[in-house]
């Protein structure tokens, strides 16, 4: 309780409140800009936080994360171009509603649904993270190995062209994590004689490259595209009738989003899609979906925001990222000398409470910004791409350089950008590579320690109940997408017949 009090007192400091508000405002802005996701913005912002104390640094990134998820809905509704992937489902009904002259109603509903989802997820975070950390406190290397493998296996179910491609991406990330000196033997691996690589590939330049560098190239191929913005009337609170109509959808989406967020590697995009599908499935009258049904906005918005706080649960309690953005926050914790995982709850309780409070404040603040600034934020799409994207790229280069003040990191960022662009063309996502890169060290380290404990008897893994449970879950998460696809094919064949 002392830690909570200390965190609460720290939030009376105008500096910290200002930091959270700046993060929230920045999050709404970058979220609103198509192509500039909160994941990319968090990665770009991380180097700026290096000189800050851990609490304001992590509070800033957490606020940006929360607000970025909501920001995407503004352009999804007004421009039909989701500012961020989690807002893609919001455009299905948000844009048609805006075209009918109800942009303000759509934005108001998106803001309220997002706030409810976001606040619910912070409550889930406050309750679930300490509980999970208590369970994880007794984990040994075999349990951590099984957990990391389970986290990687969950990549099979995240969005992307295919489950196998996500798993390949994750394994490639793990391979990247082996670059550098092997800590147990001191032998260099994949360093090609470059001493700078002995400490390994820093995940931040890779992450910035995969997100910002690849997007820069994607934008280069879309120079002739024009966006049409719908005029915005005043953003207004949803009417009582709208709330009544959407309440069930919002409640369901809060549960769906939180559950999806809790799963390692899953995130807001998956939650939003499921939230939308469930809103449609439960609706008695489905005829207006895709044409401007308000439940088609409330469902995905509540779900993707409910996933944000929940995704922080495995990140903080286990050190296993719940989504691509939380992977960056996990990295930020490490960069600031903190150890994510159960020990964080005993070693840094004040920081944790500060994160909870920052996320609560951000969720309230983005509603305020959404209501009063949506009209203004929509104008961000008017920034000419020929100025915006070169600026993003230069910022990406300098952000990568600033970490260790090494030009090699800039080369790594550019290389990751080029590779990311090519891989995306062939249906590979960036997120699994990042997950693999972050979890790689844990996978190798815990496997080696386990093998030493077990005297190289692999069968001893199966003598530990938690490990067996996690291996079963791993098998399920890998096989479920294949089973789902097979069932869908069978259903399609039956319908044809």
């Amino acid at each position: 309780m002392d830690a909570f009090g200390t965190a609460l007192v720290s939030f009376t400091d105008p500096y910290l409140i200002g930091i959270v508000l700046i993060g929230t405002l920045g999050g709404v802005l970058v979220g609103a800009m198509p192509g500039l996701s909160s994941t990319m913005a968090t990665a770009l912002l991380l180097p700026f936080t290096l000189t800050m104390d851990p609490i304001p640094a992590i509070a800033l990134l957490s606020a940006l994360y929360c607000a970025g998820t909501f920001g995407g809905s503004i352009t999804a509704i007004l421009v039909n171009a989701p500012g961020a992937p989690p807002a893609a489902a919001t455009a299905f009904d948000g844009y048609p509603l805006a075209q009918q002259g109800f942009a303000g109603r759509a934005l108001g509903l998106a803001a309220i649904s997002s706030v409810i989802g976001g606040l619910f997820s912070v409550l889930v975070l406050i309750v679930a993270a300490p509980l999970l950390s208590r369970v994880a406190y007794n984990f040994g290397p075999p349990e951590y190995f099984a957990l990391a493998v389970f986290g990687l296996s969950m990549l099979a179910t995240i969005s992307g062209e295919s489950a196998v491609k996500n798993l390949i991406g994750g394994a490639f990330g793990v391979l990247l994590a082996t670059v550098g000196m092997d800590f147990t033997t001191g032998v260099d691996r994949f360093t090609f004689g470059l001493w700078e690589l002995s400490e390994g590939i820093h995940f931040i330049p890779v992450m910035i490259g995969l997100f910002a560098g690849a997007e820069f190239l994607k934008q280069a191929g879309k120079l002739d595209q024009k966006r049409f913005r719908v005029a915005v009337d005043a953003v207004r609170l949803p009417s009582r009738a709208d709330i009544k109509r959407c309440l069930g959808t919002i409640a369901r989406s809060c549960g769906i989003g939180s559950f999806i967020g809790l799963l390692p590697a899953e995130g807001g995009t998956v939650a939003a899609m499921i939230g939308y599908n469930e809103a449609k499935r439960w609706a008695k009258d489905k005829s207006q979906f895709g044409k401007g049904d308000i439940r088609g906005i409330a469902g995905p918005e509540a779900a993707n925001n409910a996933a944000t706080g929940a995704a922080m649960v495995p990140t903080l309690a286990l050190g296993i990222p719940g989504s691509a953005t939380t992977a960056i926050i996990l990295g930020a914790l490490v960069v600031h000398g903190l150890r994510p995982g159960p020990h964080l709850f005993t070693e840094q309780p004040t920081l944790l409470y500060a994160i909870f409070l920052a996320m609560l404040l951000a969720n309230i603040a983005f509603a305020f910004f959404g209501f009063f600034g949506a009209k203004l934020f929509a104008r961000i799409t008017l920034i000419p791409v020929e100025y915006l994207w070169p600026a993003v790229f230069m910022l990406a280069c300098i952000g990568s350089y600033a970490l260790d003040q090494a030009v090699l990191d800039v080369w790594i960022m550019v290389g990751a950008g080029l590779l990311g662009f090519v891989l995306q063309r062939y249906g590979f996502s960036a997120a699994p590579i990042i997950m693999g890169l972050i979890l790689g060290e844990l996978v190798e380290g815990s496997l080696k320690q386990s093998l030493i404990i077990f005297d190289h008897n692999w069968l001893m893994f199966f003598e530990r109940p938690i490990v067996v449970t996690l291996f079963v879950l791993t098998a399920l998460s890998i096989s479920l997408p294949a089973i789902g696809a097979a069932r869908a094919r069978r259903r399609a064949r039956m319908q044809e017949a």
Partner: protein
Amino acid sequence: MTDTQPVKRLAKAGRLPRDLIIGLAILAFCAVAYWITLGFAEAPPALAQNVQPASFPRMVIGVIAALTVLMIAFGIGKPGNPRPLPKISVFITAAMMVGFVIAFDVLGIIGAMVLFSIAMPMMWGERRPIHLAAYAALFPAAIYSVFAVGLGVYFAPGLVGTLFQGL
């Protein structure tokens, strides 16, 4: 002749199975990566504790190769989606990304940013000289101030910095 016929003909004319090319490229990468692991130094058994430095990377390479074979197998019988080549602007942008890093190393951060701030928007279609000049002057100055002055990041002066120091 309907609109769909040319597409069908393309598929029948032996368009490669889905993911075959990228799959083969990944397998080639795995082969090269495995070959590189053969050059890793061996650690004394007491230090390595039966897990040599190459063991784990080889295991991961094996997993990637196995998954890639699976991906290729899933694509058999399914013609790949036609992927048009990226536009020329993508290739030029990629070259300019590489050029920026070279300029960063040689000219220094300010020189590289000023050049890039003019060249990149021009390449993307901007032609207004006053806008370009304002962007090339203000953006690098703002970024340099934040990082070098605000965050204390050291940037090597490069040719441009050395030239100014000489003056």
